[in-house]
């Protein structure tokens, strides 16, 4: 393989990684702060895509779709958190019930999408300004992929700033450490959890809109993506924001190069990576506390 193919593949892997990061950072944020493993995160990705599709039918503007897709998914996420998920926090065997409830939301939301927009394939075109491709040395890179990478990096920067430099961000981090103490200090913890859930699902929706021009839009699209994002979260360490970034980079590149080298086994490769990580370092690459059995 010459260096050009390698570079092209690397950049395409990077754009996949950024999409995965947008979804899995939301997942990991929800897990870290709200302590819920949100299996339905893919459905918010899906909602974002379809909201954007609807808006583009009306206004024919990609940027309006992008904005509304993300915000719409976030609002639906908050409503679901307030009405349903809040009721099962702290129950015995909570994990199983979370799994079931979010599984139920996959079934419900995917069918709602199918009901409203129909089961057939939809397309969202790339915006005109991001058509064409970039010339990086001797490698041609689609502008849209670069755009995705830039958006991903912006989200990383913004999240870093928000979580480490602002008071609200510190409260969010505190609530993932000790919820009860934070409540005693006068913070409205349920509201923090709802907000985090909203922001995280909005990021899922954003990823949905961003990915739409590269993939076909179908009611089953969310489920395909969620499994890969789960793997990212597991590899990076549950609830670890930077772990999600590292995991996304690994999985994005594995997917990208896997298709090149082992097209037969590309889909299986990600699971193999996950299994290896879980066996060697069960708590994830960047997590601190051990979860395995002694």
């Amino acid at each position, binding site marked *: 393989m010459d260096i050009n193919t390698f570079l092209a593949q690397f950049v395409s892997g990077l754009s996949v990684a950024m999409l995965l990061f947008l979804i899995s950072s939301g997942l990991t944020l929800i897990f870290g702060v709200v302590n819920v*493993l949100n299996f339905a995160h893919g459905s918010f990705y899906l909602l974002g895509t379809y909201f954007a599709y609807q808006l583009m039918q009306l206004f024919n503007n990609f940027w309006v779709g992008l904005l509304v897709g993300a915000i719409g998914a976030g609002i639906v996420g908050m409503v679901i958190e307030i009405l349903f998920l809040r009721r099962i926090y702290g129950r015995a065997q909570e994990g*199983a019930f979370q799994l079931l409830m979010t599984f139920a939301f996959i079934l419900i939301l995917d069918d709602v999408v199918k009901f409203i927009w129909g089961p057939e394939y939809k397309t969202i075109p790339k915006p005109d300004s991001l058509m064409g491709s970039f010339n990086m040395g001797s490698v041609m890179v689609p502008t849209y992929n670069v755009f995705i990478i830039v958006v991903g990096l912006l989200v990383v920067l913004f999240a870093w700033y928000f979580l480490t430099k602002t008071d609200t961000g510190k409260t969010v981090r505190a609530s993932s450490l000790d919820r009860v103490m934070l409540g005693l200090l006068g913070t409205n913890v349920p509201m923090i959890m709802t907000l985090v859930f909203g922001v995280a699902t909005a990021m899922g929706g954003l990823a949905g809109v961003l990915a739409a021009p590269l993939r076909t839009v179908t009611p089953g699209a969310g489920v395909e993506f969620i*499994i890969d994002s*789960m793997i990212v979260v597991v590899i990076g360490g549950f609830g670890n924001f930077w772990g999600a970034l590292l995991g996304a980079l690994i999985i994005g590149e594995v997917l990208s190069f896997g298709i090149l080298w082992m097209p037969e086994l590309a889909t299986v490769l990600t699971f193999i990576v996950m299994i290896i990580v879980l066996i060697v370092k*069960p708590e994830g690459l960047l997590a601190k506390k051990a979860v395995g059995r002694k």
Partner: protein
Amino acid sequence: MRKKRWGGNSTLKKIKDYLPWIVYFVFFVGILVVNPGTHYIHLVARVIIFSLYAVAFNLLYGTTGLVSFGHALFYGVGAYITGMLVKAAGPEYFLLFIILGAAGAAFVSIFIGLLTLRLTGVYFTMLTLAFAQLAWGLTFKLYHFTGGDDGIQAIPKPAMLTGGVTKYYIFSFIIVTICMYLLWRIRRSPFGSVLNCIRQNPQRITFLGMNVYKNQLKAFVISAFFAGVAGGLYAGLDGSIHPDMLHWPTSGNAILMATIGGMGTFFGPVVGAGILTGLEEIVGKYTEYWSFCIGVVVLIVVLLFPNGVLGIKKISGNKNNEEKETEVVCNS
């Protein structure tokens, strides 16, 4: 202590103990007497096979407290081994092949159990999911070996069971009932009590000088074996199997069936299997959006009846049931 709890002195209590079995026989034999037509017999055959799958899963989930999200793997392995053997060697030894399929599932589960059970909680759940998805992906890709996304079609049945689904239903019923009885005995054995205690108070088990990991592994393998039997039976029902049997919704269905019916009871998963299959059938007739309805049912169950359909009476009758049970099991 054990005798006091399980044996019971009054005959009334004994009858109460066996009441679910009576209902079980009345329903599944009664359906033969009523004979509502091939379509419904086929439906009930599916219910009974799913029942075994769900009850086997519940040994892990409801009893031992391990949320596996990869049980489809064992169900699918059982089905594929049975299907491929029947295709290769002819249907004469169908029963033997089902047992071989289950043994294959159990064999696979030893390795997966050894690796996954090192983790706890959500990590265990994710790792089981990963293994099942890995197997699903491989089934898809190894076209020459497993038939890829076509699955295996036209699996023959032995001469005894061909012609009419009723014969196959009776065959499934007998096998499932034997397996159910075995699982029931396992759950009521001292080993079953150990599993119960692992869910409620794993430290206690360590204090008692027993090994949590080993016992969990045993439960994992037993559960996989019976899930494999269910898979093998399903392979014969329609004579066709496909990779979707290993996909994660199949694993999710096991959790759904066990929870809807009541994971704290032995027969809960049977009720859950009936409800889920029935819903699919009834709702599927009127609309293609049946998964929406299943989702709503699951939401209602999770929010309002967390103990499942068979667990409803427990809440109203005896609030501290779970606590009492802990005491009895752990002090024995």
